[in-house]
């Protein structure tokens, strides 16, 4: 793990600000460490020489205040870290959402969307630990040992040399042992993931195991696997914990060495008591920040992982270029064509199709059929400019759509996807997605045409019923009909319907099929379907059969 991702520093202004604040707080902390040790040593030394309590009260109060001030600086580190974490994450997630929605609106499914939302919102907890605890510790690990060494050197050069002797041991040993254990630790994490995965698999399949009377036998298997894993893990930990122990050893031996050498020289009279005591008190402070850094290492890895995941997502190239400035022709008069279009998904090998030709003449209904995976929905994505053709072009009246303003082009299209989204809001608001300014009357009419009016009116609050996340659940057929109502209210010349009756039972499918027929009248329609009775209503049928094979027939 890198200590700090340079992309993060470059990209996020709050990170740079935080680094400045942390540096200042770290410097102040380092000074207070020195002040605290000096003060403590001076109080003890003066008491040693017989000072009365009255003479020391001022110093004792000052000592308590120095502790308190260190507490306030520690609090400052955490507050600054938490504030930076929430600002950084806000910056990243807003940029990510904007890029995703503008650049590749089609590329997300529900799972990935939930993952981004979780990382982008809940991820702040991990990032707070990273910014609020790890980063300050990193600053302190750089500043405090230097300050301590410098101060000790000024008081007693011999002790400073003893300390310097033990200090370089720390990183060298950690590096050596770290390298040795890295591979093993990796294997252990993999084992843990496998073990959890295995448990999840068994638990998920429990009903199936029960159906075949195999569930009891699995209990023993689980216990065996767990025990095997424990033994293997303890084996790696025996080595893995050595690096931490070397650090501890260096720290305690360093303190012991300083104590003994200081003691011997005090006894010989070559060192003053207060100086010796100050050095002894400072000795553990030399190693403490390093030890705490090691302790924070793992808990903060989560935080950095969140940020890096967001950065990775941000660096993904958009699926579609921002369009040109031309005003696109209307599909009402202009034919829409796919001209020698090839398409490949960046994440998958091979072409979805190659050299595809397709023409939609004004007013005609073209059915697009083919096996799943042949790229039917991709054609819809190309027409909507959600994705860019790998080669070839998509035109309207001979004008390349890539040269046109995407939002003006999309305004002429009503699209009913295979799995329509119902947004949180009322039914009326959901239908108005098709046309923001539609009157209540227009919304109602569209619902009637979509075959949705009857079920909507049976809802508790009719058109004002809240649906979507947290609202009233809708069946697949009901969602489809609301999406069709959106298309009706839009009054767009080009309609794209993606499998409008898939996964519906017979009755719902019939209602939707009738609505589709009404929607097709007088519009240019691309109908993606495999149900024969829907296809039969098309003027033409185009079959996509993987790669180049395109068959056309009159219906």
């Amino acid at each position, binding site marked *: 793990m890198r200590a700090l991702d340079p992309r993060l520093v470059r990209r996020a202004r709050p990170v740079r600000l935080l680094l400045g604040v942390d540096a200042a707080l770290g410097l102040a902390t380092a000074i207070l460490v020195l002040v605290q040790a000096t003060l*403590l040593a001076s109080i*003890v030394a003066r*008491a040693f020489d*017989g000072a009365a309590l009255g003479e020391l009260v001022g110093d*004792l109060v000052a000592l308590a205040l120095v*502790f308190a001030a*260190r507490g306030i600086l*520690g*609090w400052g580190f955490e*507050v600054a870290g*938490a504030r930076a974490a*929430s600002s950084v994450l806000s910056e990243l997630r*807003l940029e990510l959402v904007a890029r995703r*929605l*503008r650049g590749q*609106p089609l590329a*997300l499914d529900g799972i*990935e*969307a939930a993952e981004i939302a*979780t990382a982008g*919102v809940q991820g702040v907890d991990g990032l707070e630990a990273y910014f609020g605890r790890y980063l300050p510790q990193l600053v302190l690990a750089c500043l405090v040992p230097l300050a301590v060494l410098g101060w000790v050197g000024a008081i007693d050069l011999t002790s400073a040399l003893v300390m310097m002797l033990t200090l370089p041991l720390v990183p060298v040993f950690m590096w050596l042992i770290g390298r040795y254990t890295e591979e093993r630790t990796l294997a252990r994490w993999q084992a843990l993931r496998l073990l*959890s*995965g295995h*448990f999840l698999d068994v*638990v998920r*399949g*429990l*009903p199936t195991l*029960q*159906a*075949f*009377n195999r*569930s*009891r036998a699995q209990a023993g298997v689980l*216990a065996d696997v*767990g025990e095997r894993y*424990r033994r293997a893990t*303890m084996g790696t*930990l025996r080595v893995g914990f*050595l690096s*931490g*122990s070397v650090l*501890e050893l260096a720290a*305690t031996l360093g*303190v*012991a060495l300083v*104590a003994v050498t*200081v003691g011997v020289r*005090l*006894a010989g009279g070559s060192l003053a008591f207060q100086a*010796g005591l100050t050095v*002894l008190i400072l000795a*553990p402070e030399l190693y403490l920040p390093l030890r705490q850094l090691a302790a924070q290492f793992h808990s903060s890895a989560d935080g950095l992982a969140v940020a890096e995941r967001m950065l990775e997502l941000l660096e993904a190239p958009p699926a579609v270029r921002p369009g040109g400035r031309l005003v696109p022709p209307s599909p009402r008069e202009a034919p829409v064509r796919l001209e020698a279009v090839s398409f490949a998904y960046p994440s998958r090998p091979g072409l979805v199709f190659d050299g595809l030709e397709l023409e939609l003449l004004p007013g005609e209904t073209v059915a697009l059929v083919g096996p799943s995976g042949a790229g039917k929905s991709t054609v819809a994505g190309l027409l909507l400019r959600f994705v860019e053709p790998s080669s070839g072009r998509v035109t309207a009246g001979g004008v390349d759509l890539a040269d046109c303003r995407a*939002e003006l082009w*999309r305004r002429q299209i009503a*699209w009913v996807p295979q799995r329509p*989204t119902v947004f*949180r809001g009322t039914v009326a608001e959901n239908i108005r997605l098709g046309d923001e300014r539609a009157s209540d009357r227009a919304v109602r009419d569209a619902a009637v045409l979509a075959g949705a009016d009857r079920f909507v009116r049976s809802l508790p609050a009719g058109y004002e019923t809240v649906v979507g*996340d947290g609202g009233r659940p809708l069946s697949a057929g009901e969602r489809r009909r609301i999406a069709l109502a959106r298309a009706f209210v839009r009054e767009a010349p080009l309609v794209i319907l993606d499998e409008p009756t898939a996964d519906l039972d017979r009755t719902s499918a019939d209602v939707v099929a009738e609505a589709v027929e009404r929607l097709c009248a007088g519009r240019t329609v691309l109908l993606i379907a*495999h149900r024969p009775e829907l296809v039969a209503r098309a003027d033409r049928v185009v079959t996509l059969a993987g790669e180049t094979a395109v068959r056309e027939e009159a219906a």
Partner: protein
Amino acid sequence: MTAATRRLALLAGVPRPRIALAALLGALTVLFGVGLMATAGFLISRAAEQPSVLSLAVAIVGVRFFGLARPIARYLERLASHDVALRSVGTARARVYERLERLSPAQLQGRRRGDLLANVVADVDSLQNLHLRGLLPPVVALVAGAGAVGVVAAILPQAALVLAAGLLIGGGVVPYAAAALARRSAAMQAPARGALSAGLVESLAGGAELAAYGRLEQTLETIGAVDRRLVRVARRAALADGAGEGLRLLVAGATVAGVLALAVSAHAAGGLDRVLIALLALVSVAAFEAVQPLPEALRELRAAVAAGERLLELTDREPTVADPADPLPLPQGRFPLALEDVRLRYAPGERPALDGVSLRLEPGRRVALVGRSGSGKTSAANLLLRFVDPEKGRVTLGGRDLREYRLEDVRRAIALAGQDSHLFATTIRENVRLGRPDATDGEIEDALRRARLLDWVRGLPDGWSTLVGEEGRELSGGQRQRLVVARALLANAPVLVLDEPTAHLDAATAERLIDDVFDAVGDRAVLLITHRPEGLERVDDVVALAGEAGSAPRD
């Protein structure tokens, strides 16, 4: 320790001596640190009086001993505590599984089965922190704190009182105060986080439609506003975070100053040798190491207990189906199976999933059960395999109530190939073998052949040793269903229940699959549950389920 914590400690049970060992080693680690500073402080003070070097020998040996012993104790403590953690998660996994395994599949399915089971796995994993980070640190703090107080008490009893009070406040009050502040901060942020998450998920998942309907910029603005609100709340909440660390140092400072003041006045009054002043001061500083992990421990304990309580809620459920006291043997040879006017409800007060349904399956006959989605077809399968019992009416096998047989016998007599049947992340062969673990390779091959999979399997580079991936992800929908059918065929039960074997398949694939299955079943009785037309021409009887009862557990 609350009742829930006690029950969890039982669920994640570890032999007591191992816990005691880990706690002892933890306490020794802290105490050796205290000892190191105590002997070092004494050594330096004594040395300042410039005695013969020989009289310092004991103190020098002490310093060296503690310097070496502490890292060793720390190393052993980490091994012992991680061993406890691994054992506890292993035990918890096995015990939770044993409890879940007794429940009926219908109790595990539920509407949000995916969530439920994924949570079980995550919750069991988080139990490894119950001892390691939750219960051990307070025990260690108590023992080590008492040890340090004991050392001070032997020297200056009134200073021990101050140290004890300081440790109690620092270890008892401060963590709770920090936890209360953190809870307040989380409560402040929760609604804003929830709103933003929901908004992000919705707009990312529905991004294509927002783009198609020209609502991108509007949506981005709305999200930006919600985001700004969260950042504002979070920045305010940040002030509360990290207050714990500040408070701890405040208490530590006051305690050290207090102990020193008492030491100074005791020395002035002649009740304390001056060489012990430094020792008292350094022991007080070092003793606070014992309470440092406690705020974190409280957090971890609460998280582990919350996870554990979810588990206990699940494992406390009583099985809804169980073996009778005096079970009947399965009838010899072939037998009829029937639903007789059954009513089924998954939870009291819910709408019945099935009501007044009768169905008869004679030996060797093929019956189709059809109905629209949500009409309770899967519930019929659940009744036949006795995943659930009817509220009214009865299910009979050979004329006798299903409840009179052992569960294992019922499930041996009826094989289920369901739409939810699980494919385990192992090889093709092991997935099929689950149907009958003692089957020979030849019989497995035969089952694959009859499900029309053998040619495909033979064409794979690894043959039937090919891994199917998590939930069969490496296979196509049709291959998955065929594998499930092959498994049910291998079980060699006289009755085969096929629950929506063609769901999610396109029409042509579905037709081929159904044909192949009917060719393969031989003279078994078959119940085909479906909402699609494929296969209906090949059954003897069609039973239609009317109505939309609609509370069958479906994903």
